[in-house]
């Protein structure tokens, strides 16, 4: 009876929430959990580390610098870009088969694609084929927004500075140079190719670019990037897409071609090769380096030994730490009384 009277009173509600009695789990760092936990984590890490390390070790990488900054390099003639359309050839040999599929990268160092002002200097709407932005590009593109009031398409520093060295690879067999087929498709992200970059819905494509001008550094118009293949032309040219995906770090490599076709589907066999380089891209100004890389991949991507080693080191540290903690626990083991 008394209980019922209380309902009308100021007595606070008796719920687990208001009385702070919510059911809860209260874990504590007991030796029984922490020490075996460290051992287990350590062992697991060592396991993963070994796996990663072995995998990474199996990846074959062939890296060649062709900047030509030092005189010994065959491309040193082109280094100062005195000569337009300078071509140099590098010869190299492969001792054992590089298992396919082999990827052909170009790399740049000391190149700040991740500069804030560089990064924003583009117009995603333009690249998405929005013709209204052809006439008036994004103001962030400045100073590559207009050339004497004619809008630049594609505008901005990123597009303007597109990498324009081209490579041809030959296999030297009995004094003959056989071209190695290079696949320039499938080197960009699917989403970039299909979603993010779109040509304007105008045929022929060239009409869309009336009243615009190409970026000042470009020798070709964007609608002439690949005249042989409409699906690789304009904004959806895959070399262009690869460049437009700006790198996170100042030293980066970008995929140039895949070597998957014909005789080379199993990889690059041992032998002598020559790489013919059309040297156009200036790097001497900022002290950058250019390189080409031939590499295959594993389930965990490209060659990167860091992860494997890190896992191994940390796994071992965990095990060591668990021993230390065991000693501490045995020695101190805080007293049970108050």
């Amino acid at each position, binding site marked *: 009876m008394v209980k019922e009277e209380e309902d009308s009173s100021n007595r606070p509600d008796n719920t687990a929430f208001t009385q702070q009695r919510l059911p809860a789990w209260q874990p504590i760092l007991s030796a029984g959990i922490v020490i075996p936990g460290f051992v287990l984590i350590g062992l697991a890490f060592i396991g993963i580390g070994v796996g990663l390390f072995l995998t990474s070790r199996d990846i074959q990488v062939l890296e060649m610098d062709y900047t030509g900054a030092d005189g010994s390099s065959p491309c040193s003639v082109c280094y100062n870009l005195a000569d337009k359309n300078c071509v140099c050839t590098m010869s190299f040999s492969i001792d054992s088969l590089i298992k396919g599929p082999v990827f052909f990268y170009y790399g740049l160092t000391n190149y700040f694609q991740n500069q804030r002002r560089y990064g924003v200097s583009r117009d995603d709407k333009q690249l998405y084929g929005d013709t209204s932005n052809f006439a008036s590009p994004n103001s962030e593109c400045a100073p590559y927004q207009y050339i004497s009031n004619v809008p630049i398409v594609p505008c901005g520093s990123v597009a303007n500075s597109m990498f324009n060295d081209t490579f041809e690879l030959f296999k030297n067999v009995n004094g003959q140079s056989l071209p190695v087929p290079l696949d320039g498709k499938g080197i960009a992200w699917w989403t970039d190719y299909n979603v993010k970059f779109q040509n304007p819905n105008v045929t022929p494509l060239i009409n869309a670019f009336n009243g615009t001008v190409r970026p000042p550094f470009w020798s070709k118009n964007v609608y002439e990037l690949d005249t042989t293949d409409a699906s690789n032309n304009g904004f959806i040219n895959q070399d262009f897409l690869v460049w437009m995906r700006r790198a996170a770090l100042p030293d980066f490599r970008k995929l140039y071609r895949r070597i998957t076709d014909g005789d080379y589907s199993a990889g690059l066999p041992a032998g002598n090769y020559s790489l013919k380089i059309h040297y156009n891209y200036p790097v001497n100004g900022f002290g950058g380096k250019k390189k080409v890389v031939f590499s295959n991949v594993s389930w965990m991507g490209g060659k990167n030994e860091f992860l494997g080693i890190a896992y191994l080191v940390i796994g071992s540290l965990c095990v060591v*730490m668990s021993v230390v903690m065991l000693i501490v626990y045995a020695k101190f083991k805080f007293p049970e009384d108050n």
Partner: protein
Amino acid sequence: MGSVVACCSSLCGTQKKQEEERHLRANDRTFNQSYNYAKNSIKTSKYNVLTFLPLNLFEQFTRLANAYFLFLLILQLIPQISSVPWFTTAVPLVAVLSITAVKDANDDINRHKCDKQVNNRKVDVLINGELKKEKWMNVEVGDIVKLESNHFVTADLLLLSSSEPLNLVYMETAELDGETNLKVKQALTVTGEMGDNMEALSMFRGEVRCEPPNNRLDKFKGTLTMNGQNYGLDNNKVLLRGCTLRNTEWCFGLVLFGGPDTKLMQNSGRTTFKRTSIDHLMNILVLCIFGFLATLCSIMTISHALWEEKEGSAFSVFLPRQPGVDIPLSSFLSFWSYIIVLNTVVPISLYVSVEMIRLGNSFYIDWDRKMYHPKSDTPAQARTTTLNEELGQIKYIFSDKTGTLTQNIMTFNKCSIHGKNYGELFDFSGQRVEITEKTERVDFSWNQLADPKFVFHDYSLVETVKEGNPEAQAFFRLLALCHTVMPEEKKEGELNYQAQSPDEGALVTAARNFGFVFRSRTPESISIMEMGMKVTYELLAVLDFNNVRKRMSVIVRSPEGKMSLYCKGADTIIYERLHPSCSKLMEVTTGHLNEYAGDGLRTLVLAYKDLEESYMEGWRQRHHEASTALEGREERLDELYEEIEKDMILLGATAVEDKLQDGVPQTIEQLAKADIKIWVLTGDKQETAENIGYSCNMLREEMKEVFIVAANTAEGVKEELQNARKTMCPEAAEKALVIKARGGLFWLKKTETVEDEKVDEEYGLVINGQSLAFALEKDLELELLRTVCMCKTVICCRVTPLQKAQVVELVKKYKRAVTLAIGDGANDVSMIKAAHIGVGISGQEGMQAVLSSDFSFAQFRYLQRLLLVHGRWSYLRMCKFLQYFFFKNFTYTLVHFWYAFFCGFSAQTVFDDWFITLYNTVYTAAPVLSLGLFDQDVNDRWSIRYPQLYSPGQLNMYFSKKAFVGCIMHSCYSSLILFFIPWAAMHDTVRDDGRDIADYQSFALLAQTCLLVVVSVQICLDTYYWTAVNQLFVWGSLAIYFAVTFTMYSNGMFFIFTSIFPLIGAARNSLNQPNVWLTIFLSSLLCTLPVLAYRFVLIQIRPAITDKVRCKARKGLPEPAPRRPYTRRISTRRSGYAFSHAQGYGELVTSGKFLRIKSRPALFPKTDTPVVETLPQHYRTITEEREDG
């Protein structure tokens, strides 16, 4: 119009340098207005409609954080600098400002209402010879007002005349000083003659010159000039605002001080906005963080300049400079850009979250059923919602006594009659039975005149009295005769006593119920009913009480003509004056007295003496001479009293219980265990205070010594304090060691601290108000502080409200400690306001204390739960919250810093813009809030079982500058991991199909995912108490993160907002890569494993008390055993206290002039004496509307 005048006058009042003397003339407004005295309106509000917005905004922007965010907002509006959109700062800022503004407005509206209510009370004012009802605020200095019974006193008044004989009025001053007994004030005869003659009163042109407004309640000095004659005025002729008129039909008064000048208002300290020590620390930290931020940005600026010089100029082939921006300018701009990027070290959500957590924790206090008092239907209330965590850091508690520790109810509990102890119950085996509410009460129905509310449990006493035991009868006869109580019998048999002290009322009521009913008195006689028979004694003399005598006696002649002296008083005093034949009885009685004292009861010893007619005649003759002597009257009377009060026969002893509130000793014991020092500051007299000190276990027998400081001069006080200090700590330095330092914002505040000095034994100290006044002077305050802080227990008695506040201020000033003041009456208001935390006892009529308090509840014992449970949890939660919050933001921000070294110091953020916007507000907000609202290290039972758990809060252990530095180090480590592990793992790597994964967008996604996982894991490590809500929030936040990320990186969003969501596809293309997940896994473990290991090792090597208790709680040991019963202490200290606070009423009783007036049945026709009230004494408040008005 009136308000304008009032406003002007109050303005002028403040401008006026210092009023030196107040000069006013009755009934002459023009004369008085020339002085611009404050009118009687009061103003406690801060804003009005017009000033609210500017003032409030100004106040808010004086908060460092708000100003900072305003500044950031302005920065972000500059396009050259802006690296993040402006609304990311604006929206939360506006939200914060408006929430605070609404809260402030609401508070101020309440204050306005309250002011208005008080200002609009009506009172009769004499204007142009007529009484007019006027509002209080329109009353002016020099007006004559008429008060009626139970009215509040309008302003500080000079009493002119009253309806009562001798121009007496009776005042209740509980609101002012907490004393509940009535005070008598008497008007000058010259003014009293005017009575209620309107003509005379309106012609009255007396001029008063008196002291300027001040806050001394017990002093008043002035002169009244009337018809060329000067009359001295003292405190006894002044009625103070805040008091209530009682038992007086009407009285007239002349307004001396109005509104803000009244002693009540002068005594209530200014309303200051309280901030917690964590707030102060936070401000300092925020300032440090600004410095840190500026340092980071400067590093960035210099590096930017170097980079631009070395790399940037060369790279300008591909990235030309903006026109007109050279390297210095670009560096300058980059400074501000980095300020924006790195501003998240002080996120605005910090302040909002802190407020939310405090609000939540305040609600827990409101909701706590264990702090709900069913009898008065009062739940606890957190009136200020910004001070919670400080409840977990209290070091000093200042408590009022009456109404806070005690219920202010006296009950006659036990007695010892002729060596036999009564009042306790024993079962068959002779064990003492505890008396509870259910114990059967003695039936007094045989006695028609018995007080039905009187409770007694021991039947044997009734039997003894009924049997006619002569000692028992003499015992109660004495109680019925020897006192100064006034009876009132409105109807036959309905007796009411008006006693000046509740103790005396309790004793007389006891006698009444045991058949010796005191019925009426005249100046020459006392009539009592002795076991149903009316007997009238002739009252020959009253040997009154005073502080030196500590006893009172009456000499009466019985109808049979036998003359006797009845005496009651303090045991030590009476024992010296007993007849040697009583020595045996004395021993037994002493045993009983010790027992009573051990129970914390107030004891009195009763003795009598039969007198010879012959001797008496001579004595009376001399008595008459002495009492009419002009010189040395007091001394001569004392001598006479001394002479007759000897060789008395011991009758027995009484024990009266000053009823403590429930659970007070236990609470005090608990709080003492938590290392909280409790000081009692009371207006009561020393003996009472001391006695309560014993009964609530603050003063203990084990204490080495209890010092009494009661000197009357500054030198005396100094000497006593020094002696006490030297006794406690002989090796202590003569001079107090004051550590001077600078603290606070910009180190502008000078601080002086006095360290605690170590004392091995436990000591107590009792100091009275007079000594305290000297000790609080500038030159003695350090001495006082040092001595007092060495003692375990400090009791200050007879202190004024202002002194209470001064004591609190003293401790606040020199001790870096958090103080709490608890009280129930208006006299505690200043103390409540002065302390860091003020607690009011609610559930009673008086609201003054509650209104100015920060927390309120109905019973003192809830303090234990408030501090040990809510306070501790709040502190723990706040500290954990802050620590975690700073961790998560520093970690997050520093990643940008490391990235700067790889992106040309260009203020490029690592994370995606949307992640930056949502990180603090969405992704990490809920889990950290749940940490701040639900976490508990051990549950409430364990918290109370181990009060020691409280000490980390007092020592600021969970969050301090040191902890903050630790937190930053941890963040640096984590951010390094969070940047460099992804950096190393992604360097030159590609997807498993050879395509790009080391691009900026994928890297951003990877880094932010790592960060979010790490901060989520970290909060899991920090959480002690995993409720479902915590789990839900942590997992939910992660889920929301992935959901939002996938949504924002989806085709659809890109189609709709092409330029806003450029990260299309990044999630799909990188989160399906095993090495991305391996990187996330690696970095999160690398961040958490060292923390785990460190904590584990720390628990093993240096376990904190929390770890121990947690371990205990986990082992599932039985819940804390019920506390052992409260053991009785063996005590030899006693206090005889059954007398009034002041000199007794003996003179008044025997003078008898007014008793002859037929119209007046009794002196104190108050309906209830405290003893017969079962409810605690109600205090009336000046802010509440009169019910009968």
